[in-house]
């Protein structure tokens, strides 16, 4: 059975790019477009996989032929199939190396590396790697290791999951939280602790009696000097750096032109790859409680591909024609969490009893139906590590809320998340958001799974209003609700299968707007 997509869809220029990649001749300017093509085009990935299989089959065939020629000259009566001969040779050589390694490893243990002011990893949830200073993997999946783990100078912490959260502590007691996809390296820098945040977010939490020892954080576009008693959060991605200081102060230097500025408590600074902006610290703006992303103005689509690249206009005024209202119940553990709808007969009773506790999720159809040229973002394939040796593919879209405007968007009791979406195949959808307590470290992710029965008809445009109370924390250690959280990003995804999920609009509605009705 051939399970590959139809590669006839590849254009000659795409095939040429694939050949160039295999030949190691992709220019710097072509690398990005190659990567984009591979991410977007399953046919290209199938082509590359098959070409790799062909290549190793050619190597095997010639190598086996050479072995057979030698064997036939010595022992003409021996007839062995090329594959089985090779398998035997491979097993024999692997066994020999294995024995040699066992002997070698039994001769003595490796000496522990020299530790200079080690940082201790205090907790880890999700999938992480700790890379040695030579790039080798020193440790994987920290949460399975009972032994204390140290983060040494020269080493790199890399998280491989959007739901990963890791905390480490310096000897002075200052704690750092690293969450989501992130990569952080400890750099040697005299007596100061120095880190390089390539991508992701880091939150600091000084100890009660932390001394004001110097601390340095670098990102691809900024150099930040602060002290260990400073409470801040730092975010870096694609040349963008944002620092918010809540306690203490920091001096930030833009690496492109060397301009520097002092950021005091309650202030923030943003550095973008464009040099035309003057560098200045500004007071952290007041929180707001509603947010809207119509895809045309979203500054940062974190996950997903534009499925319409010719948006002619913004969305017209629309309203929600309600066709379903159902309750969402979650178990106390993430494992058993599913969304279940009550039948119509049960609805009234449940509605009365639980109306005050758990507002209903509302599913409807958008009126009027929008044109086909509506801007939209289609879910992209994303590998997700759920343990050290278990990965699944998910198909996700995500939008950055924190980067779409200067004001933090904070959830309140009664807030709702509204998703305008469509899908091609009926399949469960997971809706979620990530957030942090305002001026405090990262809190985690909150999610809600909605089963296919709840989703309505495939191919149509649906709108779902989900009360913030219906979402549950993914972290077992976080039992509270999401009230007061500043939303970092919002997402929707399919696990395991591509159901053609497309997001057209996401909104966060404050309590007053959420209560005001379902029309926009």
């Amino acid at each position, binding site marked *: *059975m*051939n*399970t590959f997509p139809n590669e006839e869809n590849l254009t000659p220029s795409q*095939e*040429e790019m*694939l*050949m160039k990649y*295999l*030949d*190691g*001749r*992709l220019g710097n300017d072509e690398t990005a477009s*190659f*990567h984009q093509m591979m*991410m977007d085009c*399953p046919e290209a*990935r199938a082509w*590359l*996989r*098959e*070409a*790799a*299989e*062909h*290549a*190793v*089959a*050619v*190597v*095997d*065939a*010639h*190598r086996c032929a050479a072995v057979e020629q030698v064997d036939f000259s010595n022992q003409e009566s021996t007839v062995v199939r*090329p*594959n089985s001969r090779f*398998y035997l040779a*491979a097993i024999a050589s692997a066994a020999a*190396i*294995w024995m040699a*390694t*066992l002997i070698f*490893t039994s001769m003595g243990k490796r000496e522990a590396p020299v530790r200079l002011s080690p940082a201790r990893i205090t907790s880890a949830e999700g999938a992480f790697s700790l890379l040695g200073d030579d*790039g080798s*993997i020193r440790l994987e999946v920290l949460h*399975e290791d009972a032994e204390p783990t140290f983060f040494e100078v020269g080493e790199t912490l890399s998280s491989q999951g959007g739901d990963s959260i890791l905390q480490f502590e310096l000897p002075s007691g200052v704690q750092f939280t690293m969450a989501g996809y992130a990569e952080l390296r400890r750099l040697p820098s005299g007596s100061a602790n120095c880190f390089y945040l390539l991508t992701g977010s880091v939150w600091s939490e000084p100890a009660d009696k932390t001394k004001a020892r110097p601390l340095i954080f670098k990102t691809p576009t900024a150099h930040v000097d602060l002290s260990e008693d400073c409470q801040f959060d730092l975010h870096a991605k694609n040349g963008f750096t944002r620092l918010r200081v809540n306690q203490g102060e920091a001096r930030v230097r833009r690496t492109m032109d060397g301009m520097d500025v002092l950021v005091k408590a309650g202030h923030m600074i943003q550095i973008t790859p464009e040099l035309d902006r003057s560098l200045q610290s500004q007071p952290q703006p007041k929180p707001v409680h509603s947010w809207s992303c119509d895809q045309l103005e979203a500054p940062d689509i974190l996950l997903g591909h534009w499925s319409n690249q010719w948006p002619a206009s913004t969305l017209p005024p629309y309203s929600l024609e309600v066709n379903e209202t159902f309750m969402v119940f979650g178990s106390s553990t993430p*494992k058993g*969490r599913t969304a279940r709808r009550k039948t119509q007969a049960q609805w009234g009773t449940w509605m009365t009893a639980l109306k005050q506790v758990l507002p209903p999720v509302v599913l409807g159809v958008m009126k009027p139906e929008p044109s086909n040229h509506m801007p939209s973002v289609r879910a992209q394939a*994303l*590998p997700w590590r759920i343990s*050290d*040796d*278990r*990965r*699944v*593919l998910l198909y996700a879209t995500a939008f950055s809320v924190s980067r779409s405007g200067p004001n933090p968007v904070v959830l309140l009791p009664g807030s709702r998340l509204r998703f305008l979406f469509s899908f091609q195949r009926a*399949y*469960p959808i997971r809706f979620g958001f990530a957030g942090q307590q305002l001026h405090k470290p990262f809190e985690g992710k909150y999610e809600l*799974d909605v089963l*296919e029965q709840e989703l309505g008809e495939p191919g149509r445009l649906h709108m779902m209003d989900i009360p913030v109370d219906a979402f549950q924390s993914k972290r077992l250690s976080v039992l509270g609700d999401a009230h007061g959280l500043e939303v970092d990003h919002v997402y929707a995804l399919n696990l*395991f299968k591509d159901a053609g999920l497309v997001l057209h609009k996401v909104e966060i509605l404050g309590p007053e707007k959420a209560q005001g009705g379902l029309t926009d």
Partner: protein
Amino acid sequence: MDFQSKPETSLDDKDHRLDEYQIMKCLMDWRPRLLAAAWSVTRDGFAAEDIFQNVALKSITRRVVFRAEAALVSWAYVATRREGIDWLRRNRRTMNVMEDQLMDIMEMEWMQTQATSVDHRLDALSHCLGKLPEKSRQLLKWRYHDGLSCQEVADRLKLELNAIYKRLSRLHHALRDCVSRRLQLNSAD
């Protein structure tokens, strides 16, 4: 469907610890794909074989147990990729390397085919390689077995680089079609 159910994979998911024999057997079943994964990083057939053997070795000396074949295969793909990148670094090869996320997707898609069908594909591929004209086989040998670059092959044949790209591309298409036909024939039998 429950979101928390395990990924739909054709691999056995027995709740017991795989012993060394089972580990080796599983890895040998998956050898063609793991080799191909290693090759897609190093683009060197001999390095790919070395990497596969190293991974096999690690799998039986690693202190973490594998409770299911799916877990072993998934781990093996990741280990293969890392060995491949280490090999590039050790040999100071400056090649375009796919980003981690893309490699993850490629590996996941690779894993969606059953090991038994891997065997059939390999047999069909061996057969199809044998059916190619001598000149085509020579071209593939130079490129993939001898490790010549496309430019070096073009110089030998006194052709333009693009012509080699097109020929190789056509050969891959022909092999794919042949494998597909052969698998269909086998399934009809």
